């Protein structure tokens, strides 16, 4: 009896251990807003979509090239208006429902439904008119858009194909995992999709990891603590402070994948109707003033002090991490306060007694607003304050809660300068159309213009539209390279740094090859495996 009891206890102890060893755990920093793939707009939902969604084409995050997934072949015709996919046969959703061209048609119709307002669908909206999806056979479909869509095939990396027949609708998954359990505010449990179509070179079904547990945890201290204890396997985005701490204790677990796509930048308010003094608006609208400020900021110090050298000075809208679209001809901006003063003198500014004054005698003073609670931005603003003090400019740093900040910069325009970051998820410049078009709401320095306020903004509008309608990537790149040059010359955004992609990966997680592009650590989720070691060895 005692032996049976011992065996039972041993079995009870071993079962969760075995499950735990093949269960990948990491944290989502917020609650996913949706599990419906076409409606994904936030980072947490994107994680679920990436892990569960089956896509026709997948962008390889390492090579930054498109690879076939559910579509074995594809062809773009009719001047970029039509894309024809040949689908893989014998593919099934997680609930056993067969996958076919009808599902692609259904997904695209959902995506382009104006009533649904799908953020993913927005990228495909090239002009007035309807998208037409024609099923040519169960394994072939042609999708035609009213106008050419630039970078059309790359957009399908974000399109998770939803079943048209499954009673589970969007919860039936074609990706490596499916949502097995969801406890709002607590966790999301993903189990391996037994019908997943991919096999490894030896014919074994992928993915190797049986389950993924995503707990919702916003506190980064707790995330770090759990990681160091071996209770979670990865941290997808680390702050520089935490990175350095982990580097000291367990150097094998942290990875600096180099510059990410994200940038930190400041800009001046150039909105004509902004409730700021006219003379200040005049400063902010002057190219010389903006370039002078840009030259007077020591970006190397920002990278070294704020990001502990885990960042690179930024001087344009595209990070060097974006291998194809980065304009390599652009020269890094040098820190030169004398050159800055020369630019200012050209506009009639004079430095006397340590105070810079404009030609009417106004002392040069402005405020920079940034988001409260972001230590990195507050530190950057304080360093900029000292850098500009050296050329006689007084800067007042104001931190605001995020809602107040957005109200000021997007609705009231009651601010002078702002320091914020831009998160770039996609590589294609089309994803930045909302930033560069002068009519856009996200054209932060002067949004919603009826006609471009300056010739260079008109030129950017023209070039962005040109690249969006061109089909050849080289032609598109020429246009977008020029956009980058104009932005560097005019400095509407004063780019400060490109943060490095810093991640932490447990030594138990094998096959991880962290990259700079999201999702940095688990982009090759199906190739990842967990070593069968005791969790304590990972610490």
């Amino acid at each position: 009896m005692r032996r049976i009891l011992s065996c039972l206890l041993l079995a009870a102890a071993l079962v969760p251990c075995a499950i735990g060893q093949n269960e990948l755990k990491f944290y989502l920093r917020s609650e996913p807003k949706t599990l419906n793939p076409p409606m994904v707009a936030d980072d947490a939902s994107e994680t679920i979509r990436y892990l569960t969604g089956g896509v026709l084409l997948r962008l390889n995050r390492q090579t930054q090239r498109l690879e076939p997934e559910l579509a074995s072949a594809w062809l773009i015709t009719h001047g970029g208006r039509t894309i024809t996919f040949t689908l893989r046969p014998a593919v099934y959703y997680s609930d056993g429902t067969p996958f076919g061209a009808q599902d692609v048609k259904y997904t695209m119709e959902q995506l382009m439904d104006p009533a649904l307002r799908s953020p993913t669908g927005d990228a495909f909206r090239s002009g007035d008119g309807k998208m037409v999806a024609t099923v040519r056979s169960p394994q072939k479909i042609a999708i035609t858009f009213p106008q050419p869509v630039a970078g059309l095939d790359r957009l399908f990396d974000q399109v998770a194909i939803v079943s048209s027949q499954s009673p589970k609708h969007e919860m039936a998954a074609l990706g490596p995992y499916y949502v097995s359990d969801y406890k709002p505010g607590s966790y999301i449990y993903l189990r391996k999709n037994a019908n997943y179509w991919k096999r490894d070179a030896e014919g074994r079904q992928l993915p190797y990891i049986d389950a993924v547990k995503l707990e919702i945890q916003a506190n980064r201290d707790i995330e770090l603590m759990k990681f160091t204890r071996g209770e979670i396997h990865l941290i997808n985005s680390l702050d520089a402070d935490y990175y350095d701490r982990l580097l000291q204790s367990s150097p094998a677990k942290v990875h600096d994948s180099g510059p990410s796509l994200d940038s930190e930048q400041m800009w001046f308010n150039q909105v004509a109707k902004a409730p700021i003094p006219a003379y200040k608006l005049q400063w902010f609208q002057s190219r010389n003033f903006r370039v002078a400020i840009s030259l007077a900021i020591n970006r190397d110090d920002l990278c070294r002090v704020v990001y502990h050298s885990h960042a690179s000075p930024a001087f344009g809208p595209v990070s060097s991490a974006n291998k194809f679209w980065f304009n390599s001809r652009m020269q890094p901006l040098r820190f030169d306060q004398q050159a800055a003063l020369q630019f200012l003198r050209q506009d009639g500014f004079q430095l006397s007694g340590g105070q810079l004054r404009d030609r009417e005698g106004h002392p040069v003073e402005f405020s920079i607003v940034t988001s409260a609670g972001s230590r990195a931005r507050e530190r950057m603003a304080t360093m900029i304050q000292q850098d500009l003090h050296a050329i006689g400019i007084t800067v007042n740093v104001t931190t605001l809660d995020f809602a107040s900040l957005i109200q000021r910069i997007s609705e009231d325009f009651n601010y002078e300068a702002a320091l914020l970051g831009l998160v770039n998820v996609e590589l294609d410049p089309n994803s930045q159309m909302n930033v560069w078009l002068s009519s856009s709401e996200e054209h932060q320095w002067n949004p919603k213009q009826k006609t471009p306020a300056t010739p260079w903004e008109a030129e950017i509008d023209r070039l962005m539209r040109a690249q969006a309608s061109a089909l050849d990537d080289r032609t598109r790149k020429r246009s977008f390279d020029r956009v980058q040059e104009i932005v560097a010359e005019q400095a509407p955004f004063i780019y400060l740094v490109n943060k490095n992609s810093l991640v932490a990966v447990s030594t138990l997680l094998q096959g991880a090859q962290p990259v700079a592009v999201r999702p940095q650590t688990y982009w090759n989720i199906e190739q990842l495996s967990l070593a069968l070691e005791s969790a304590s060895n990972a610490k």
Partner: protein
Amino acid sequence: MKQLRTAAIALSALLVLASVAGSLIPQFDYARQDREQVNAPAGREHWLGTDDLGRDRFSRLLHGTAVSMLLAPAAAGIAMLFAFVIGAAGGFAGGWWERTAKTTIDLFLSIPWLFLLLMVRAMLPLNTAPATSVTITFLVLGILGWAAPARILMARAQGLRRSDFILLARATGVPSWRLLGKHVMPNLRPVLVAQFWISVPVFVLAEANLSILGLGVAEPLPSLGSLLRELETMLSLRTDWCRFAALAMLVLLVSSLQFAISRREVS
């Protein structure tokens, strides 16, 4: 107990005077960033090391203590003024005045003050110098922090209004303004003073709360609250002891003030 109180008052005064005097010495520059000596340990050049921007921590502690300990009493003074006008006067006047004052106090007590502070702060002009900004922050704290002392003053004033000696004075024809000045005020003074001293650490801590959220004193000016931000993450627990200097100063000051307040006055 009296000796402890005297020692606490002396320690508070010493800390405040030392910080104010020290902050007037140009050598202790709280804003200068030595970017080659970021997070430097304590040494001859930097007695408490440097912060994450290479600023001398000791200089910042001196200025921060001076800022907090000069402005918190000012804010407490403003709060006492409001508390007296609304609470004590309402309680003494009685009737409609008392009901209005009571409703106003209840209203202010029921408002989540942190959100109100955030709202007020968001409406302030952005382009204000750090010194103005910190003054405004404490001013707002004072304007919003009167309700709790006002309720206590009101209760005391109500008691006085119903007391025999006031009834006797009224019966003998002493006018209301004279009653207030000659009889009520002297009797309210101990409560007012006690409430003032209780409010000072409350405002220091309130500013610290705002600063922890990044919404307190504007950079580069330090305050005790903003200096505590060095301890906001778990990482700070494993670093050098100098980071805890601001916390130690805050605990020391708040404790001294608590000891300095007479228990008799509070009760």
